[in-house]
């Protein structure tokens, strides 16, 4: 029965919806919640049923679907500030009016009179492809081998995607179950299942562009704690460090170890800030002219390991022109590099920075990054007010000098490469020697598990005693140390366990 419904829903969701509406006898206010729970039962219970629904992603852009087909969209909520939309919930002949049905009705069928009681609200928000979602993760989610469909171009509302000039999908999401929608926050990663249509962006303005709209039937917020544990974690750790060191860090295992610690860090407690430390890998050589690849091998390695990873090759031009923190202009929230979901790793490389002038915007951008590093908060600018949003971003800075020119990171690790492996620092993706799939999966799972366990480990009394003594000793030696050290030492101690 369920499977029959599933197939019906896949084929013609609108019809299924109408049928549901007609059978529904309860309060009309509760209908959207009813629909949501109904469809959740069918689709969201297991991964298998979820995968039955066609994915909307970079490889499967909205154009490739017929109007009003059922799709799923694994996305990041980018902007929740659009005003809720009012729609006529009940049409003539007891027809359902939501989920875009009434909007697309020809004007002739528009009821001449209507009751204000039938007006209902739908929450509208803007969702984009998860920024920095790595290829393997996308493929894992799509769970379809056919990547035949045309990769999409940069869609019209591209200012709403954190990374400029990157193919992505941006969709206006309309959620009819308002109560559930209330809990969605910006940068939440959510899987939406709904009916895909195309509508004008802003119904109040005559000439607003047409965008894809997803009328959500049900949705699920991705929690950070899903994933399975594998047994071979202990061996995975050493192998992982070795692999990173050899492939991407010129054989420096100490740096690799720091890196792994860093990758497994996350925000533990905000009240008394126990935040992931940021790390600088200093003395990271600039690419030689022969290996013109701007991105270090580390980028490819991290892309292979992490579900969400973003590399930003800093340059003065980029700092001065691009946005790092989101800003609302004309009541439209423009995105910035730092508007990424919790658990994203950010790799900043300073090797492209040349001499020149940093303008106001650049200074502000640097400050925003520093704020994320220090406090894990990101300020969104709105007219006359700024809102601080919590982030959980692990930042890794690569710089050539002794320390980063722009950022103060909690940890600075000078890279000590072995001359024989130095050429490894910059390689193209193809040149990276990946371990076999099973091993790679083990690595991924190790990092994911470490991240999950982060902060659940108790710090033994003697460790704490040790840290305390260490601090006092350091104070005696170097009088300029502040309290910050404790926090980073402490945080890394936590990661070591």
């Amino acid at each position: 029965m369920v499977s029959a419904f599933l197939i019906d829903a896949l084929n013609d969701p609108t019809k299924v919806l109408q049928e549901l509406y007609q059978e529904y006898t309860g309060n009309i206010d509760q209908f959207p919640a009813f629909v949501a729970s109904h469809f959740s039962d069918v689709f969201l219970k297991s991964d298998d049923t979820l995968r039955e629904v066609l994915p909307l992603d970079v490889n499967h852009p909205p154009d490739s679907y017929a109007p009003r087909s059922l799709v799923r969209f694994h996305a990041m909520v980018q902007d929740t500030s659009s005003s809720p939309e009012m729609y006529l919930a009940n049409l003539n002949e007891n027809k359902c009016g939501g989920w875009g049905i009434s909007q697309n009705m020809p004007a002739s069928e528009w009821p001449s009179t209507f009751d204000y009681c039938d007006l209902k609200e739908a929450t509208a928000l803007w969702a984009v492809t998860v920024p920095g979602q790595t290829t393997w993760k996308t493929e894992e989610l799509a769970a379809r081998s056919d990547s035949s469909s045309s990769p999409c171009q940069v869609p019209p509302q591209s200012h709403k995607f954190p990374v400029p000039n990157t193919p992505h999908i941006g969709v206006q999401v309309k959620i009819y179950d308002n109560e559930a929608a209330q809990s969605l926050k910006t940068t939440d990663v959510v899987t939406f299942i709904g009916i895909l249509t195309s509508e004008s962006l802003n119904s109040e303005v005559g000439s607003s562009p047409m965008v894809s709209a997803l009328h959500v039937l049900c949705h699920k917020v991705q929690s950070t704690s899903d994933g399975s544990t594998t047994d071979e974690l202990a061996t995975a750790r050493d192998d992982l460090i070795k692999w990173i060191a050899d492939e991407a860090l010129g054989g420096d295992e100490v740096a690799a170890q720091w890196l792994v610690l860093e990758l497994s860090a996350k925000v533990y407690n905000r009240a008394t800030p126990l935040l992931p430390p940021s790390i600088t890998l200093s003395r990271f050589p600039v690419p030689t002219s022969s290996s013109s690849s701007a991105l270090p091998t580390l980028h490819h390695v991290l892309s292979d390991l992490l579900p969400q990873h973003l590399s930003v090759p800093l340059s003065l031009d980029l700092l001065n022109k691009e946005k790092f923190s989101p800003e609302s202009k004309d009541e439209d929230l423009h995105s910035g590099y730092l508007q990424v979901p919790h658990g994203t790793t950010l790799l900043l490389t300073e090797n492209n920075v040349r001499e020149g002038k940093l303008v106001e915007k650049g200074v502000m951008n640097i400050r925003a990054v520093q704020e994320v590093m220090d406090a894990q908060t990101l300020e969104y600018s709105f007219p006359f007010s700024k809102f601080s949003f919590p982030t959980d971003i692990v930042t890794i800075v690569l710089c050539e000098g002794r320390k980063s020119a722009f950022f103060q990171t909690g940890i600075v690790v000078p890279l000590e490469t072995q001359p024989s492996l130095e050429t490894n620092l910059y390689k193209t993706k193809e040149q990276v020697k990946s371990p076999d799939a099973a091993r790679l999966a083990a690595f991924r799972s190790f990092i994911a598990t470490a991240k999950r366990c982060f902060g659940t480990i108790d710090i033994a009394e003697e460790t704490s005693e040790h840290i305390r003594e260490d601090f006092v000793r350091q104070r005696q030696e170097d009088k300029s140390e502040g309290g910050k050290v404790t926090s980073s030492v402490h945080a890394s101690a936590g990661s070591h366990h």
Partner: protein
Amino acid sequence: MSSPPRVDFPTSDIDDIEMDGPPQDGTIEQSLSIAPPPQRLFLQGTPSAAGTPARQRYANSAVATPMSGVTARRALGMSTPRRPPRTPLFAPGSSPLAFPSSSPTKTPRRRVTIDSDPADSEPLAFPSSPANALATPVKNRRGDIHSSLSLTPTARRTRRGDYNNDFSDNLNSDGTHLSVPASSVPHLSAPAAPSDEPDEIRAIWGTTVNLAETMKLFRDFLRGFKPKYRATHDRQENLRTRTFATPEEGEVILYETYMRRIRQTGETNLNLDMINLLSYPPCKKLFVQLQKYPQEVVPAMDQVLKDLMLELADEDQQAGMDGMQGDQGDEEIADIMGKVYKVRPFGLTAVNMRDLNPSDTDKLISIKGLVIRATPVIPDMKVAFFRCLTCSHTVQVEIDRGKIEEPARCPRDVCGSVGTMSLVHNRCEFADRQVIRLQETPDAVPDGQTPHTVSLSVYDELVDVCKPGDRVVVTGIYRSVPVRVNPRQRTMKSLFKTYLDVVHVRLNAGGTLGLDRSTRPAGGDKIPGIGGVGDSADDQEFEEDVQGGRMRKAELEAKLIDLSRRHDLYELLSRSLAPSIWEMDDVKKGILLQLFGGTNKNIARGGGGGGPRYRGDINVLLVGDPGTSKSQILQYVHKIAPRGVFASGKGSSAVGLTAYVTRDPDSKQLVLESGALVLSDGGVCCIDEFDKMSDATRSVLHEVMEQQTVSIAKAGIITTLNARTSILAAANPVESKYNVDLPITRNIALPPTLISRFDLLYLVLDQVDENLDRKLAQHLVGLYLEDAPNTGGYDVLPLDELSAYIDYARTHIHPVLSSEASDELVASYVSLRAIGASDPRSSEKRITATTRQLESMIRLSEAHARMRFAAHVELEDVQEACRLMREAIRTSAMDPRTGKIDMGLLNTGTGAGQRKMRDDMRRELLTMLDGGAGKGKGVRWGDAMKRLGEQSSIRVDAAEFSEVIKAMENEGVLTVVGERDKRMIRRVEGA
């Protein structure tokens, strides 16, 4: 020239209707007028009434006057045509022929007939009258209401009814003793009365609302409400109530006073606190009605208000009240008749804009938010004027829910041609309208969400009342209107846009520390138009009661006053400031006083422009070693004073916010060179890394900090901007670490001119001290081990309470110096000067007192008094101010000879036990030196330590020991000779 025609035109229409009315429907309808006002009012008012129309904005109001003029004149037996009295007022153009757009034959003729004899007008005017019925009850023309009472053309009768309401006051009386057909009209229907028109029934919507009753209720309210009702109500709700000075105060008929004031000030708006409706027992029902059916109830209220205005004016005239006698009174009354009065209700509990939902449509609601955008003034068509191209018949159509229904065919039966009605643009009526986007305030946004916005439409007087950036509480009618897919098509989409038609705006509902109001000119922020008269407008207390928060505010106020009576107030407040930062009590106290600030003063009798302004802002500079939580303090202050701006000196340049990246030639390392100065008028500007600011930038501060202005002279612009801000700056000493071997001034290395502009200069020094370090480390590690932060958190005020306290003090307390205090100030200043002057050699090495320091002391004492909620600056305030200033620059720890800070003398965080130990050590050492052992020669350093250690049960700390020695050396009790191990401690003879 356009105004006379507009005014004239409806006049004729109305006459028509009036004439036509009775014969047409023949039904006797219930009169809405509650009490026919005495007629003499109109009789006497006539001459001037005839003259007033030119002033009128709304046709309907104009209608009233000529009508009454006619009738009155008739009643007086005057046979003069109405025109003569008017002509002098208008330029020749006022002649009927002057409207180019109306057919010259019709309108003027009609009017002429009226002038001569109203009865004649009937046949002539008849054809056009129904359509022209526009007539417009006063209130229906309010842009914000769009009353459905006059919704559609079919509601003609309603309108007529309304019209009669309007005039019931004046017509009634006439009618009663005149035998013209008009006489029966006054008893025309109230719109509320169900009539044969379905439209009208819809307008009342099958509810229990009887408009006549509603009007009567409101009338009773205006006539009967006394403050004592409110007091009773508040008491029932357990709110703090204002106590009446005298029992009579509670017995005043509040709204009659307001109405008199409206008359005297020429206002047209009455702000109505809806809570008052609720507290007046008979009107509880009205409160609900107003909330549910504002479209209908508000116009009714407007009408009642006007009726009562006239009634009251008349009563006053009869009573021979001042300014209302004879002709003067007539003039007033005529004036009132010509005006459109608006009731502006407010006082509903403000809801979050997220909670608005479709069921609120067309109801009165209140929301608060932040204005982010306002359009320029838009002319909003209120009444469209159509003319038939065939027969030149004219029709006026009123706006309904933002739309104007274009008549499809000529309504005149004789003509009836289809599609001939064309809009005559300059005969239409327009209102000022402005669309405002209101955004949720940060405190209302749920966690992790981005703020929502709604559109507001404001009309007439409310236009330009709020500017982008203002925090407002608005009361308005929530609308949902179908969206047109394509503006050029007439089809609708099943989407709706929502907005608010605003009836009342209240500015500045900010909760936290706002701008310093004393920096604004008195009354400068007062907005014309919004003021109106009525609850609140002139009520100082209203400033305090944020809508819905009235009770909370009152409670808070009581709480704050309670707080101010605590004897440990000063400690409590300073403890609550940045509670996570350990120790540094004096720094916190100084900053606390900065937040309170001194009083801004103007010497009014000075030279031109009211004389110089003396700043009350206190500037504080923190200089100290890295890692002493200076930045954290700054951040905290920035948080508590939202108007504050946080700038890093390192990220600032005088030009703006620019920076430069260079490569260090030696290390090949990229270096960031930059310099931001953002100033916040009326707030606190926090500048971190003050020393790293370029000289050019810093020089701007000179002017800011004393004159509180920024002068700009570039690109052909020479101007002076206000920068009334307190500055809280933090800097590192010259060599990053404080060098004890250099005098203070050289360690700070800021120009003395700038330093002297800081009222308080704190040296925050980082002393290496094992005990202290151990405690600090323990404290910090402890923070991480447990979830509950131990932020010294015993009995501290939460951030919002602290900021509320400060805000209240800044707004309400303006202490003045007592004579006792001023004597003390003088004495302190003189002694400060004396220190500097005593030794000319040292003057350059120390921060000397100038008159600025005297002013600083005044400001600090004022701030301290303000903190106590005291009206006068007392002796204790001055003493504390002096103590703070002394402590701030560590004068107590400074070597008067060298100007150097003696680290040994600093006792930051030195516990009492430690001090006792030092005293013991010192005593023992003296006994040792004076005793036999080393008489004359002195004692070796190592020996002395060893011997002390033998005597003592606890280990003698080397650092402690050297501190003691150093202290004694400074006192001149002993000297140390030699180096390192060979050091000898010698007693100075005769000391």
